[in-house]
């Protein structure tokens, strides 16, 4: 079985992309799968912070180093399965959160981006050789080179959107201008939806999903209500590990199941 690659994307920042990517990876790894989680948000990396308790910073080899041909694909991974006592395996590849590294990525030329997308494909090929079941990439929001590179190299993308009108408009535009143009498989996940959808039955979420599907002309994989305690949780806290029964995690478990079937 070849690796299923899933990129987590959004039109704007603050939709909960990184939290969703982290928890989805942990959920899948805890189900017994071998998972690789990549931080491809080079302009605002956050996974180094999320996994700071499991890894030693600075790591020997960042994803930036791999793209700059300073290390091999295998060298970027840190196995955190033992630290979190997971049933399966979780390998993480982090982007360098240092200011210099972020500046360096911003100064890259178009020629470098061509090399970067090719390197990304070779990384996925290595991940496949490592018998990884799922590779999840956390990307930069909007139309950034790194996020489009991630989308191009993925089997499926999950766009995380809130119900904010600007966010929805951005998602609609991205679906047409980017995903349809690249003929890529995509699912939309509504996050931080109105809290009343949590109180009411699932029918309310179903109606909302139907309405959004008509507007966006793409499938809605789920609607997750806004949980204030999730918003207040420290970045170093991985809810799927610490509160696996939390409704937010339970919603993500359903999303994970649907995603594994879809891909």
């Amino acid at each position, binding site marked *: 079985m070849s690796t299923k690659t899933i990129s987590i994307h959004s039109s704007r920042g603050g939709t909960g992309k990184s939290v969703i990517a982290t928890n989805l990876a942990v959920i899948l790894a805890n189900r017994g799968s071998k998972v690789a989680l990549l931080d491809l948000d080079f302009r605002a990396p956050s996974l180094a912070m999320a996994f700071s308790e499991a890894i030693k910073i600075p790591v020997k080899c960042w994803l930036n180093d791999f793209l700059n041909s300073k290390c091999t694909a295998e060298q970027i991974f840190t196995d955190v399965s033992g630290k979190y006592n997971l049933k399966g395996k979780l390998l993480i590849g982090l982007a360098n959160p240092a200011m210099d590294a972020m500046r360096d990525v911003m*100064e890259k*030329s*178009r*020629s*470098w*981006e*061509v*090399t970067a*997308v*090719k390197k990304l*494909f070779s990384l996925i090929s290595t991940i496949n050789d490592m018998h990884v079941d799922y590779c999840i990439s956390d990307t930069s929001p909007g*139309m950034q*080179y790194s996020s*489009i*590179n991630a989308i*191009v*190299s993925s089997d499926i993308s999950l766009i995380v959107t809130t119900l904010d009108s600007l966010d929805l408009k951005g998602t609609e535009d991205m679906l047409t*201008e*980017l995903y349809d*143009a*690249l*003929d890529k498989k995509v699912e939309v996940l509504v996050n931080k939806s109105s809290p009343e959808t949590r109180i009411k039955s699932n029918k309310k979420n179903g109606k909302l999903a139907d309405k959004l599907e008509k507007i966006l002309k793409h499938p809605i994989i789920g609607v997750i209500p806004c949980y204030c305690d999730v918003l207040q949780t420290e970045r170093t806290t991985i809810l799927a590990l610490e509160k696996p029964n939390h409704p937010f995690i339970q919603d993500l478990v359903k999303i994970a199941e649907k995603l594994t079937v879809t891909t």
Partner: protein
Amino acid sequence: MFTMASEEIPLALKNAVLLARIIDELHEANEKLELLVNLNRKLLDAQKGSLQKTDSKRKPSQDFKLAPDVVALLSLPMSLRKTVMVLYKLEKATAKDIANETKRLRAVESASANQLVRLGYLKKKREGRDVYFYIQPQPEIKE
């Protein structure tokens, strides 16, 4: 006898004059032909120059190299986009290899790849009987 001789001389003279005139006219015609040949040569040279200029407009010059990055990809038609995306993955491939990935006909991929070569996005090289298409590695230039 005298009469006959006097009649023969003017005839020979007449012939000689006629011959001389023919030769002169032939020279003149030859000069004109030479002039026409020269003019034609000049016209052909001018035409050749103009064709070369048109060709250079059609094909990107050696100095002009396109970076087939993902953003440039969005400006291409879907049929060509798919071919480039496969080459990101395969690095170097024949039309048949590309067709295996895209599930389209080999002939379609060959046409797409050759069009991308003409547009300057791809390069191609022959290895034995196979023609390989690839994305030209470019030197790192900060923009």
